[in-house]
Structure formats: C-alpha cells, structure tokens
C-alpha cells in the first residue's frame, strides 16, 4: 500500500510532503510518546499520532517513516508543516481519531509490525 491510498481511504488532507505520496507503507505504529516511536517504530511505517509539534518530523525523518497521520482534528504547528515540507515527509491530517485511523488501516492490511 502507498501513502496516496491512505489519503483516499481516510479522506485526509495532505498538508506537506505531497510529492512523496508514492512512499510504500511497511506497517503502522500509533503513539503520542516520541521516545517510544523512536524505539519501536520501523522504517517505512506510517505513524498515527495526535502530536502536532515539529519534533514529530525529526523523528519521522530519523526513522525513515513513510508518512505521519495527525489524527483527532489536531492542527499541526506552522513549523511542523514547513519542516515536513523540507524533509519531504507526507503529513496527513484528519478529524478521525487515532483508533479509527488505525482500524481503517488494519482493515486494509497495514499490520502493526
């Protein structure tokens, strides 16, 4: 599955990194604690979170994540968007909850590994 398919599935808005929506998704990870994402997230994972501050982009870039979904109608900070743009990390926003996003992804075969 690629990021663009997630965009369509969630009817999400892509606020940065639109040029990388062909990134292949290796699996999914959901957490709001960045240190756990760094410890447990894997390259190519799509990350579902409610954190909107710019350090999420540094973490995604460090791990080589395929995309970040900011769930629960959280609006990312301006710096987050510009940093995701320059780091070419697709940043998706949605009003759906973390639980709903994870469920929808799981249904489509994105596993938690």
């Amino acid at each position, binding site marked *: 599955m690629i990021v663009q398919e997630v965009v369509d599935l969630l009817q999400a808005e892509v606020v940065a990194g639109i040029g990388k929506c062909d990134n292949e998704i290796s699996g999914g990870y959901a957490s*709001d*604690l960045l240190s756990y994402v*760094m410890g447990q997230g894997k390259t190519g994972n799509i990350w579902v979170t409610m954190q*909107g*501050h710019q*350090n999420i982009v*540094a973490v995604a*870039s*460090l791990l080589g994540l395929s995309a970040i979904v900011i769930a629960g109608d959280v609006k990312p*900070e301006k710096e987050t968007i510009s940093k995701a743009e320059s780091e070419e990390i697709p940043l998706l926003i949605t009003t759906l909850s973390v639980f709903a996003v994870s469920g929808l992804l799981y249904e489509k075969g994105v596993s938690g590994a």
Partner: protein
Amino acid sequence: MMRQFVADLHVHSVLSPCAAVEMTPRNIVWHAAKHGIDIVAITDHNACDNVVAAFEAAKGTNVVILPGMEVETEEEVHMIVLFEKMRQLKVWEQFVKLHMSGRLNDEKRFGPQFIVDAEDELIGIKPEMLLTSLRVNLAEVCEKVNCVGGICIASHVDRPANSLITQLGFIPPDVGLAAVEVSRLTNPSEAIKRFPAIGNLPIVTSSDAHTINDFLSGPRTVFYINEPTLSEIQQALKGKNLRKVVRQ
C-alpha cells in the same frame, strides 16, 4: 534589602540542540546585564554542561545565575528544575545520566549541542540525544529534585507540546510542584481561566529563550525578595515572610 528582582527562570544555551548559536553563556549574561535581568536560570534540555561557564561569565556583573535544567520526563512532560548551588545540580546531573535514553543525537535533524566556556570557545559537543525523554517518570523526578533541595516548575503548561496539562490531562496534586510556568503565548491573568487545572499553584512566566530576541522580549517574573537566591524565590512563590511575586 528587600527590593524587586527581575528573573528569567527558563533560558536555553547553545547546549540545547534547538537553541541558536548566539545563546552562549557569555552572550546571555551580557544581554541580561544590559537589560536589567537580575536572575537568569540556564535550563538546557536534560543537561547542564554550560552552567559553569555562565557562572564564570557572570563574575563581576550584577547578574546572578541559578543552576538549572529543563528535564523531559518519561511522559514527555517538560519540567524546569532549579537548585541553589552548583553542587546540588551536579548531584542531580548524576541521576539524569543514569536515566538517559542511550540514544545519540542526530545533529542534522535535531541540531548541534555545543559545550562552551565563558569566552565563547567551543569545549566539546555533547553526544547524547538531549531532546528526548529520560527513563524516569514525573513523580520520580519531583521526588529526587526535592530530595536534593531543588524545586520543580512545570514548563509552559499553556502550550500544546510537552506540557504537564496536555501530556497528563491534569496536574498531579502530590508531586510537590513549586509553580507552573506560562509561556509568552498566554497572558498569566487569563491562564487560570483557560487552564483551571492550575488551581492554587503559583504562576511564573519565563522567556523559554532559544534566541537572544526571545530572551529580550521576555516574559519574565518580578520577585520582591531580599536577595537573589533560590530560597528567597521559594518564599516569594509561597508568599511567605513578606516575599512575593510582584508580576508575571
């Protein structure tokens, strides 16, 4: 003699990966002296390697340095911890070192972590990743800090990231916080209405400066105290012995 002291209790130096390179201890002290900031706490993320240089730089000036750190707990809550004496901060630093994540900093993504002396000379680069959480929770941090004789102030409780209120949803009543800090985003008089969780805790404001421009634009807290020490500030926060917080 009792008088007003202007304090900025939350200032980052070049050791913090997110701080600008102009934030050397010498430059911070110079600007503090020029702009009438009497008390400055150097509070880098999970480290304190530039505090000694700040003490050195402040010699012969009217600026008083408070040794401190901005700690990130396991819950990713940011806490300002302040001590009276450097030796207490060193004890605290040992505790922090035992609970580091073990990750190394990625300078390209998070920023460089410079250790400098009082003349702005580069002494070294801190290899550990500072912009991450320690493996120790909020209650343990507060207990240890209080045990060493320091105080804990919850950083920028009005901000959406790394604040005690957003991370936990409430302020634990039993951890012994000395105060909560409100950032430049919120007028302190409105803070209590917007964040009722603050309750009866004293409120301070600080610049959380990452640039000299942040530092000069404030905010700061004005204390009415007898001398620029942590114990006087503690009394002011409690409103004891005629000491008080004049203005946030």
